[in-house]
């Protein structure tokens, strides 16, 4: 449908005149603009495609009748006061030409211009709505200190029915659609489960789109070699914003071998089961196995490190955000520097809390080193610390990064000597911590680490007493920049 602005349409009437004056107007330059009013009509209650800007009369009688008509038009409320122009019959050609030029040409020209302005204004209004909504969302997140980068909004686990034949062939010949059971608002990525990935050449094509507006949001075309068995995270380049809509995932493959895209448990909600143009017994009441995440785009979920960037932004840096593995924490070594050896363990792993205990002692620094904790590419480290006893004395806590394959004690000693509260690229600075009020300690690196480093946690006494200063350090979160694994695609999902 073409909706380009045109000249003033012929059916629009801009001038009112009495039907008794019809002869004077017939065949004139303005005849197509005139709506004739029958003299017998006392009241005007309805106008169709009539926008009276002017009324004209050629006699006293028609002028009087028109005045009555114009008075009745006031009942319509919307139409502004209309000027009544008295013309001379037989001597009005110039008047007609003038009216025609002003109304037909002027209004048409103005309308054409205003149409383009209106179109632009509408877009601006829409953008303003989105900006205001987003501004508020950001402000709320800021106020709430809600910095959790990624949240799992929905998960449907893989399920293997012994009778499953696999839908690899189906994906190579056709496509499947999966509606996602979450609002699009804030969605940053989707994880799909593969029960096997072939080694030969081939591509998996995934398209994410809005159902209601039918817009494509993002597309991933991935070489099989860049996929791993189990979960693969398809990250969006920016989280879905604007109005909340339903998301549709369309998946297909190309290549000689088929891929083992996993299906989930059967569900009774038919609308959310896989749809395909080709029937397949595995698809009966089954959705895909998938997970949906909201939050910061470009951050992979902890347990799904294989992140795939969208096809058009696959070169952009990606951030992996994860917790330090428990196995590493278990191997924490006591690298304390102190003059007196206490008769209890000051550094140990708390089995059920996945945390480290780092009890301060007077006259020294208690330190635990986690060897090889930080991989190349790490851009930030953060931990949470608290005195885990209601009567515990406050203590000082910090973290530092130490080169791998090097004794960290000299750096621990140096940190103890400096007593600095100022953070650096390898030292968080000392923070005071007490019971009941956890503190966050973090190090932001200007550049990603070029190689692996050790992470050291430190504690020191404040004042004379360290009674019950059971300093617990937990929530070891690492952000690491990774090189993209996704290949650049060239074909769209089969249609």
């Amino acid at each position: 449908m073409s909706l380009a602005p045109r000249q003033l349409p012929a059916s629009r009437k801009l001038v009112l005149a009495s039907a008794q004056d019809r002869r004077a107007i017939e065949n004139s330059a303005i005849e197509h603009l005139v709506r004739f009013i029958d003299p017998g009509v006392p009241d005007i209650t309805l106008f169709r495609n009539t926008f009276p800007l002017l009324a004209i009369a050629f006699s006293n009688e028609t002028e009087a009748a028109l005045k009555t008509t114009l008075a009745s038009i006031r009942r319509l409320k919307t139409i502004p006061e209309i000027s009544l122009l008295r013309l001379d019959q037989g001597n009005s050609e110039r008047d007609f030409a003038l009216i025609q030029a002003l109304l037909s040409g002027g209004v048409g020209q103005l309308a054409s211009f205003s149409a383009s302005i209106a179109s632009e204004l509408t877009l601006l209004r829409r953008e303003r709505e989105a900006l205001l909504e987003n501004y508020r969302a950001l402000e709320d997140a800021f106020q709430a200190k809600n910095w959790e980068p990624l949240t799992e909004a929905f998960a449907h686990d893989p399920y293997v029915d012994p009778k499953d034949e696999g839908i690899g062939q189906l994906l190579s010949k056709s496509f499947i659609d999966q509606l996602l059971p979450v609002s699009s608002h804030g969605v940053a990525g989707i994880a799909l489960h593969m029960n096997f990935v072939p080694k030969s050449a081939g591509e998996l094509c995934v398209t994410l789109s809005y159902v209601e507006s039918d817009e494509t949001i993002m597309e991933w075309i991935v070489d099989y070699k860049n996929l791993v068995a189990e979960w693969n995270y398809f990250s969006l380049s920016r989280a879905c914003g604007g109005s909340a809509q339903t998301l549709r995932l369309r998946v297909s493959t190309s290549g000689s071998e088929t891929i083992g895209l996993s299906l989930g448990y059967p569900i009774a909600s038919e609308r959310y089961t896989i749809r395909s143009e080709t029937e397949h017994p595995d698809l009966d009441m089954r959705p895909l196995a998938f997970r949906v995440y909201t939050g910061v785009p470009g951050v992979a979920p902890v347990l799904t490190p294989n992140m795939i960037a969208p096809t058009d932004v696959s070169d952009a840096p990606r951030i992996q955000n994860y917790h330090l593995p428990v196995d590493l924490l278990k191997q924490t070594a006591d690298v304390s520097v102190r003059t007196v050896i206490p008769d209890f363990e000051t550094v140990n792993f708390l089995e059920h809390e996945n945390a480290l205990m780092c009890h301060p002692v007077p006259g020294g620094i208690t330190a635990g080193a986690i060897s090889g904790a930080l991989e190349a590419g790490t851009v930030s480290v953060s931990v949470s610390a608290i005195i885990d006893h209601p009567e515990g004395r406050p203590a000082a806590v910090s973290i530092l990064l130490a080169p791998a394959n090097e004794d960290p004690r000299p750096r621990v000693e140096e940190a103890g000597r400096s007593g600095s509260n100022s953070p650096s690229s390898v030292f968080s600075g000392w923070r005071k911590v007490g019971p009941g009020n956890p503190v966050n300690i973090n190090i932001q690196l200007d550049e990603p680490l070029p190689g692996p480093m050790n992470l050291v946690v430190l504690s020191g006494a404040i004042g004379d007493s360290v009674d019950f200063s059971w300093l617990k350090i937990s929530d070891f979160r690492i952000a690491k920049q990774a090189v993209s694994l996704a290949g650049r695609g060239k074909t769209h999902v089969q249609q």
Partner: protein
Amino acid sequence: MSSSEDPSDLIVVAMPLYGHAALAMEAIQSVLSSNTPNCRLEIVVSVDGDIRNETFDLLLLYAAAYPQIHVVFGVNAGPGGARNRAIDFVLEELPDARAIYFLDADNRVLPTTIETLYKALVSNECGWVYTNIDTFSVSWRSHYGNRYSRLVHCITDNICDTGSMISMEVFHSGVRFNDDRQNGFEDWEFWLSCIEHGFVGMPCHDTTFEYRLRAESRFKDANRDRAASESFLKKRHKALYQRPTLVDFEHEECPRYMFMRTEDGSLSCFTDPNKPRRTMLLDDLIAEFWASIGEPDNVHFPPFVMAGSRATLDLLQGSRMLPGILAHLESLSEKANVVFVHLSNDRQQREISSTLHDSGAQNIPPADLIFLSTALIRDVISNNALDWFSSIAADQVWPTLAVLNVCFPYPRKLPRRSLISPQQVVLNCVNAVASSSFRQMADKRWTWRPMRFMPYSELYKALRRELGGSPVLPLGHNQGGKRTAALLVPNASFGGAEKVIYAAAGELRAAGYETHLFVLGTTRMDVIDEFEKSFDYLHFWDEGIPAWGSSGLFVGQDFISEDHPMDWQPLKGLLSGFDLVVNNHVMAVHPLISRLRSEGARTACYLHVIDSTVFQRPAGQPYAAIAHEHCYDAFLTCSEQLKTYLHSFGVPFEKTFAVPNCASFSVTPALVSEVMSQRRMEGQDRRLRLLYMGRLDRQKGIDRLSAAIGQLRASGVPFEAVAIGGEILADSAVSWSDRLREQGVVVRPPVFSSNDLIKALGWADILVMPSRWEGAPLMIAEAQQLGCVPIATDVGAVGELITHWEDGILIDAPTDVGVVTELVSTIREVANNRQKLAPVVEGCLRSAQRRSWSTSFASFIGWCDDTVVNSSAVRPKSRATDETAYRGVVAAE
């Protein structure tokens, strides 16, 4: 919509405009930006007397720039009126339009909205297509269900925004918006009109539109006065809100019952047992059961489950009691976990009785049918209580149990019984559901928009609330398009009042009505062959219905008021939705009559007699009825005398039909001739034969009879006497049976069959009726038709049935002594001179020939034909009867 989508199809966006001058631009612009490669688009803006000149300027410029934009300026008429002006414009100026999409001037469409909705409209061949609602500015969203239900739309809320794509067929059929300003829900009202015209909607979740929501809106205003607005809707669409219509919707869209057949495990769903049932496979049952838990607003699962054999269901269907029994089962399932139904054959009576058993009941006879709620099955599965539940098929039943015994006359030929017990079939299904792989995901809702509808399986409760009754009689409109009549009696034995109402039902049925007998106050009825065909349905309910009550006094007479401490719910649930209700002495129903009438029923009250207390105060049913006079459209009386009496209490003559009573059984001319020739053959030499028939109590004047017999014996009058009847009321210290026997009277127990009545009346020369008060006893007409001369006290309307010494003899004396004296002298006179009786016998036969129930009820039936609205005729067109067969619906087996 019946044709396929065509690229040249014209779709019109109609936009009422008032008060949104500054926002209309966005609405128009969103339409102009629509992506509609497969259809043409035009816009009609209907300005509703908007006071802003800015609106004029805006629309002038748009109309000047775009030929596809049309503008109608009109005086303020409200949103309904403005939309109607747009519709008229489309019909007159754009006659090739295929559909209209209504877009409010403050809302917006997405580029795909129009095209997607039109595709859905064409492919679904429905009246309109609607979307979920997502609002902006104030963010809110809601899921409007995966399927359309007229029942949901009528009784819960408006489930379709006006922002819907509507087929032009809707407007060609005359549907318009109501522009009454009292109507706060003009959009909801519009959809109800569509439903009335046989159109249905269809949801489309593949697109949406942008609904601007502000903190305050017209919709919020309307909701503040929701009760008044809903009342307006219901008054305007009365036909939609009647029980048969709503039950039909329920039957087609969210059936109340699932029936599991024992013979083959087949499954079917229904509400109205007379309508085609939706069959389903066990696989579907499992899927729907679990889906209804996770997505209760999208998927329906019947709230009640029953199992039995086909023979059982056929028997119940044939008994004409099935709808009422289903209501009983619903009620019992709320008192016990499981209900067992036992059927038995009884040729003399119909009866329903129930007993409740605690957990652990033993020695329960095998059930013919079992009934339970789906909620129990859900609990059993979620609590892993299958072992507990399985005991329903064991000797000791651990769920609490109700047993419903139903007896009625069976047909001669019975189908074979099933070899599988109903319990086993239910257990098989429940086990299959519990072990399904769907269980794993049952608690997860996949539809992400918040739920707006109530769960489908709860709709039967919403229906109860809507009708103000519980349980709701599961009967929709009858398939024959007949008017329906409910005839109410407090008991159903052999009383004259019951027989008259049976006769009335017979006449109504002959006149084309579907007739329902409601026995309210007892759960049994005697079988009377003569009236077996008077009723299409028989319903019983006694729980909580008092025979008499005194929560109010009217001219010193008791009546039951609305405040009476009784459960009105069952009565309302059973009686709602009939075209005609005839109350025959059911006192507890009077307070309900006004509500039934306001729902569309025509109401009549049948009165037979004014009773008398021991102090001779006039009393009885007429007074409670007169207290409710304005609720009744008509009164029926057995006599002109009672009609006049009612008039004296303010009941207009025109409102009252005096219906002369006739015999409760008919006799053929051959039989009359046989009886008369027998009388003639026996000649006049034998002793005079006296017959008394009726209760042996004070009202019937049994003491007078005894005294008269004594005097006749003492004076040596030759006669023999038979008294047939029982001491039912036992209002005397003496046994009248014994007393009469001592007086040489043969006393026999009551007889009820027409054959026994004919035998007794054919034997007797005289029927003696010394009653203290009567209405218009049927017995007089019955005696007359067999040439047995009635000698009766001139009480009540007896004088209207007997013309003195022409077709009977009247005893008219003010005192008991006077009555006895006159009775004795009359009997003596005819005993001594049998010739005197002969012309009276002939007169009896002549009178009997003149009488018939058809003649008696003719005026009343004529009134009914003129005034009783046939709700079945104005019901909305049913999808199930369309040639576009409702998916899954098959003919009832």
